[in-house]
C-alpha cells in the first residue's frame, strides 16, 4: 500500500514547523548557535505564525517571572507603537564600530603619527649631524691594520688632532657672512632645528 504523497508532504511540513518553533524557543533563551540563529531570525521576521509564537512565549516568560509584569500586557499599546513606527523612516545606519575595532583604529593612527614625526623631525636631524653614507662605507672598507692606526690617532689628545688638521685659509671678507650663519653649522646642539627656531622668531616680528 502506497502512502498518500499529499498527507506525507503535509506531515513533513508540520514536522518542519515544529522543529522551527523548537529552534525559535531555544534562540529566545540564547541557546542556539550563531550559524543557525541568522537564518532563523530572518524566518522569524518574515513569518507571521513564528512571530505569534515569539510574542506569546515572551509573555509566558514574563508571567512566570512576575505576575505583575504579565498583568501589564497591553495589546492596545503594542498596536499604538506599531502604528507610530509606520510613520518613522526605516533606519539605514552604518554599523557602529565595536570597541575592539576602535582600539585597533586608534593604535594604527598612533603608529602613523609616530612615523610622521620621525620623518619630519628626526630624519633631517640625523641627516645634518651624521656622516655622509659614502664616507661610512669607505671607512668600513679600510683594512684592519689601517683601522687600528686610525684608532690610535683618534685616541690622541684633542690638541694633537687639531694640530694635525690642515689649517683653513681665512678670507676676512667672508667673516660677517659666516658670523651671520653660524647657527647653520653642524657644531650646534640641534643644527637642523635652528632653521625652524629662526623662522619662528622672525614670524613673531
Amino acid at each position: 500500500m502506497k502512502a498518500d504523497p499529499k498527507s506525507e508532504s503535509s506531515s513533513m511540513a508540520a514536522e518542519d514547523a515544529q522543529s522551527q518553533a523548537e529552534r525559535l524557543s531555544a534562540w529566545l533563551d540564547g541557546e542556539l548557535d550563531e550559524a543557525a540563529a541568522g537564518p532563523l531570525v530572518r524566518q522569524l521576521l518574515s513569518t507571521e505564525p513564528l512571530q505569534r509564537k515569539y510574542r506569546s512565549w515572551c509573555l509566558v516568560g514574563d508571567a512566570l517571572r512576575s505576575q505583575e509584569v504579565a498583568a501589564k500586557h497591553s495589546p492596545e499599546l503594542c498596536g499604538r507603537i506599531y502604528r507610530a513606527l509606520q510613520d518613522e523612516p526605516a533606519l539605514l545606519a552604518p554599523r557602529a564600530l565595536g570597541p575592539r575595532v576602535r582600539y585597533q583604529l586608534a593604535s594604527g593612527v598612533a603608529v602613523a603619527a609616530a612615523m610622521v614625526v620621525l620623518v619630519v623631525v628626526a630624519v633631517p636631524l640625523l641627516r645634518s649631524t651624521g656622516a655622509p653614507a659614502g664616507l661610512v662605507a669607505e671607512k668600513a672598507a679600510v683594512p684592519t691594520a689601517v683601522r687600528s692606526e686610525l684608532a690610535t690617532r683618534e685616541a690622541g689628545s684633542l690638541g694633537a688632532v687639531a694640530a694635525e688638521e690642515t689649517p683653513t685659509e681665512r678670507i676676512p671678507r667672508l667673516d660677517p657672512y659666516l658670523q651671520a650663519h653660524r647657527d647653520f653649522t653642524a657644531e650646534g646642539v640641534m643644527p637642523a632645528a635652528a632653521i625652524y627656531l629662526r623662522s619662528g622668531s622672525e614670524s613673531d616680528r
Partner: protein
Amino acid sequence: MSERDADLQLVRRVQHGDKRAFEMLVAKYQRRISRLLSRMIRDPADIEDVAQEAFIKAYRALPNFRGESAFYTWLYRIAINTAKNHFAAQARRAPTVAAGDVEDQEIGEESLRLSDSATPDSLYQSKQVGLAVNRAIEQLPEDLRTAIVLRELEGLSYDEIAAAMNCPVGTVRSRIFRAREAIAQELRPLLGTREDERW
C-alpha cells in the same frame, strides 16, 4: 550565544532598516517597561503615552546603540529619562516613586515590586494571571514543569538543566518548548491574546 545576543541580532536588523525586528523587541519588553513606568506615573493613560514615547525614542536612537550594554538596560534608561521629561513637561507633583530612586535600583525582581500606584484593576489582573500561571504549571507533566521552572525562574542554561535532569540537551530544548506552548495556551483567554492575533 546568550539571550543578550539574541536581542542584539534583532537590533542589528533594525539598524539595517527592518522595522519588524523592532516590533519583536517591543513585544518582548513592552510589559517590563510599562511595569517600570507604573512605579513612577499614576495615570494608566500617561503610562501608555510615556511607554510609547520611550519606544519611539529608542527606535530613533538605535543607530547610536553599539551593544556595549544589554538592549534592555539601554531601553530602561531611555524610559526613565522619558518619564523625567514627562514630569518636567507636565509640571506635576512628585511621582509616587522618585525617578532617581528607581534609576538607582538594580534591574530585577526587586525593581518589579508592586507599588502603591497599582490600581484595583491591575491588582485583579495580576492576581488572575498568577492563578492562570499556577494552573498551567500544575497541569504540566513533571519533566516539562521542572525544565521550564529551571529555565525561566532559576535562569539555568540548557547544559545545566540537562545535568540537573540527567537527560540530553536536545530533550531539555524540546521540554521547554512544549511547556511554553502549554502555558501560552492557558494564558491566551485571560490576556486577550489569540493565536492568530498580531499584538
